[in-house]
């Protein structure tokens, strides 16, 4: 509560004792911002924006979609970043994991609600509420855009999911279930890093015909524009993006050595050298922080950020898969900033690596990190290695509770969702 109180206007309080001249909060500027005088209209519609925001942010998630239909002002309010952050502060928001896939110009979406870890529930409860809801499939207006969603990067801002792909950008509104075409990136890239900082999308790295790897682009969803904001210190292909505390992390990928652009796909095909580093871009100051090493020396295969201020990285190299977290908290002095901690690996058979056969997507929300097996069959992998025991089928969903430090298994990804791209939506 205190955050919202500090900004309050004390200006209309007039007291009968002499005001303290040094106290600026008590300055006698008679600007009645929201004065409930007798002449003011008495309907609730006359509430000023900040109070309306306070009221609307307390409405349960299930009723939010219809709020956006009431009028333009309300629609604007419930889509604002302030609204989302206010709900987060108040613990009114709910998180939903979305898995999107496409087939024959049809988009499939499956959603899974996260359970709130409030004080009344214990940590050994199931982490996830209910089962997957395979909701909609939409005939795409622009089918060529997402023939294969597994190459797309998903970002969510409020209730909207942005599907960023080499050929274009689509916006899927999870409230209205509508799909709209947005502006494409300035540079066509694939296998790039993508993350959201302060309601804007940032992309970096990747390969393409015009070698955009060194350029960082920013997308402003309100204006529907892309612009180049920085040059990356390294060029990476197949890198992964994350964001914590105003920093855009460009993690891992393959090193792109040659000056010539055409070398990019070749490097990928021959699977040369993994970049075991990550670059940190501070969005606010538009500056690069010191690059960090990614532990394990392998390739970072999945990375994500949580509200708790950590970047979680699933790394895979010759011997094993490992799970790490990076302390990305820079506020309050940032004492632990930059520290890597190895944490419990996901419960997967030791044979599992991240290669072309089995692929994982990793998303986070509040206290949960979810690893979703989006491609490949672990069972096959085990058989090939001579084992004959029953493997886990495709679509494994593993949930890591960052508070309890334990893994649990969520409901498997529905059959219909193949080669999915995943994102967590908070609103």
């Amino acid at each position, binding site marked *: 509560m205190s955050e919202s109180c500090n900004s309050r206007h*004390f200006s209309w309080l007039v*007291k*009968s004792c002499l005001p*303290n001249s040094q*106290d600026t909060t008590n300055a006698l500027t008679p600007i*009645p911002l929201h004065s409930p005088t007798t002449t003011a209209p008495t309907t609730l519609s006359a509430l000023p924006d900040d*109070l309306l925001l*306070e009221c609307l942010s307390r*409405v349960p998630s299930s009723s939010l979609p219809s709020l956006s239909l009431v009028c333009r*002002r309300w629609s604007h309010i419930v889509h604002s970043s302030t609204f989302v952050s206010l709900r987060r502060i108040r613990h009114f928001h709910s998180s939903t994991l979305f898995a999107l896939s496409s087939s024959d110009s049809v988009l499939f979406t499956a959603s899974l609600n996260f359970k709130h870890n409030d004080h009344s529930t214990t940590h050994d409860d199931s982490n996830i509420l209910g089962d997957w809801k395979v909701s909609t499939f939409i005939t795409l207006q622009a089918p060529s855009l997402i023939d294969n969603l597994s190459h797309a990067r998903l970002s969510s801002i409020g209730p909207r999911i942005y599907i960023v792909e080499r050929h274009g950008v689509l916006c899927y509104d999870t409230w209205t279930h509508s799909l709209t075409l947005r502006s494409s990136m300035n540079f066509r890239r694939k296998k790039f890093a993508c993350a959201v900082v302060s309601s804007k999308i940032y992309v970096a790295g990747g390969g393409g015909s015009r070698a955009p790897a060194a350029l960082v682009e920013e997308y402003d969803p309100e204006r529907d524009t892309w612009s180049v904001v920085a040059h990356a210190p390294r060029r990476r292909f197949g890198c992964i993006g994350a964001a914590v505390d105003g920093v855009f992390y460009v993690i891992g990928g393959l090193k792109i050595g040659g000056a010539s652009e055409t070398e990019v796909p070749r490097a990928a095909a021959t699977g040369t050298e993994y970049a075991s580093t990550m670059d940190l871009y501070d969005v606010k100051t538009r500056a690069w922080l010191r690059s960090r090493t990614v532990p394990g020396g392998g390739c970072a295969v999945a990375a994500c950020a949580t509200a708790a201020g950590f970047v979680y990285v699933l790394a895979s190299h010759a011997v094993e898969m490992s799970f790490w977290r990076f302390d990305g908290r820079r506020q309050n002095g940032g004492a632990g900033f930059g520290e890597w901690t190895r944490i419990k690996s996901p419960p997967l058979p030791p044979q599992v690596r991240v290669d072309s056969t089995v692929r994982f997507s990793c998303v986070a929300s509040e206290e949960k990190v979810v690893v979703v097996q989006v491609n490949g069959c672990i069972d096959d992998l085990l058989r090939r290695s001579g084992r004959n025991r029953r493997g886990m089928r495709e679509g494994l969903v593993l949930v890591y509770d960052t508070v309890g430090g334990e893994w649990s298994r969520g409901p498997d990804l529905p059959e219909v969702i193949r080669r999915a791209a995943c994102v967590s939506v908070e609103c």
Partner: protein
Amino acid sequence: MASTDDKVILKSSEGECFEVDMAVASHLQIVKSVLEDCEGSSDKVVSLFIVEAKYVAMIIEYYKNYVELKEKHEEGGFEEKLKEFEKQFLEQIDKKELKGLVMAVNYLNAPALFDVVCTAIAKHIENKSVEYVREYFGIVNDFTAEEEAQIREEHRWAYDGVNDD
């Protein structure tokens, strides 16, 4: 104006005076900070120029009960009792007053009651049709006819399964 040490006088916009225990008034952050500023002054009258008497009365009633319940249920059960009282408290406030109250409470910076009132307004929106919300809030639909038609098509579900009132 003479008053005992633990009393303070709140003056509404109409000039009506309310004598209140400090324990109650200190929940209003703005009153608290004013009194801290002029500590040592014998004059303990705070003029709330823009708050009508009826809202001052409501706010005092709420915090009076809040303080009493807290004292009575120190060992526990306070939150349940407070919830009970809040329910009664809200029942006697109509929607016009709710708006005035939220403004007044916001101005006086009283976090607990602010939360109660905002939640009450949010409850009125929960699971209601778009039309109901518009009427309740006195909002004029400013979407164009085409937009409205398109929205209805896309949101058919949003108009189903809502409470009637």
